């Protein structure tokens, strides 16, 4: 599945990934291939992206929103570290 992590100032991450872990408002959850369509707001915490080679990239966000639909993920965050 494809992901884009976007802030107002730049595109932080873009690529094919195997798994995504996000700090959802109702609790952290993981997105794998063929996840149901969802829109969820995110709270402050850690976003973990696992790419096709199994490497993890970790981003600290202060909140945001994620949309998953048909194996395309878009994650909007106001600031990413």
């Amino acid at each position, binding site marked *: 599945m494809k992901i884009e992590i976007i802030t107002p100032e730049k595109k932080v991450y873009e690529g094919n990934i195997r798994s995504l872990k996000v700090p959802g408002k*109702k609790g952290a959850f993981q997105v794998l291939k063929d996840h149901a*369509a969802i*829109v969820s707001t995110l709270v402050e915490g850690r976003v973990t992206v696992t790419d096709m080679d199994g490497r993890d990239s970790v981003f600290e966000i202060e909140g945001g929103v994620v949309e998953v639909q048909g194996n395309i993920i878009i994650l909007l965050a106001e600031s990413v570290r």
Partner: protein
Amino acid sequence: MASLKEIRRRITSVRSTSQITSAMKMVAAARLRKAQDKIVRLRPYASKLHELLIGINNRIEESENDQMYGRKSDNSKVLLIVVTSNRGLCGSFNASVIKKALGIIEEKYSEQYQKNNLWIMTIGKKAWEFFRKRSYQIYRDSSELFDDLTFQNSADLAATVMEAFLNKEFDRVEFIYNRFRNAAVQDLSYETFLPVESEGKSDEVYEGEYIFEPSKAEIVNELIPKTLKIQFYRTVLDSYVAEHGARMTAMHKATDNAKELIRDLNLEYNKARQASITNQILEVVNGAEALSG
């Protein structure tokens, strides 16, 4: 006719001015490109956020949509955010914004102004210098935003204004600024920041069933402040881009004018030089004739 020396001095001075204006034009062009780049990078975020909000709004019942940023009232307390530049030499860029602001106060908000219920917030020293000398209430001056125009700084400022709105310090917040069309043209714009006009229900582009977490209404309530921050940032950025466009054009014109002036002065210089040579020859001829006679 001016003396040769005088004309020569003027040519030198005009020439050095034209060098300065042409350098300033280059600087403005470089800054313009950089600022435009920022707008381009903002676009994916802004459009996705907007798409999400419209998509959810279309699925939500009106009654659920109780928006605290949408509070309607009789507009008794108004904040005008006037966006200009920190520096001059950009043609009528600042003057037109200030004139528009004065026009709006006179036509639309004269009652609020008389009751001391009209505040002005300036972003850009030019507006601040104008309004502080007159009898207007300045809510705050945030010209320093242009020294480091990042999303974070702009969002912090937007949050301050939004909080003031929630605390009922203001019932209405509006922007007056120059919107960038191209380097030569700015569109003077007047927009409402708060209260939020409800997004109309569009013909749906959003297909399929979604899970919404925590709930549609809560997501909307979280997304709206985000879009407001984006709107604030985009507005200031737009004005910033327009400023550099305006300065580039103004400096381009100034350089052209200087070139024309130099051409005219050169013509005058040559005429004066020829006249003086003719005079000298006449004197020599007259002197020779007097001797031979």
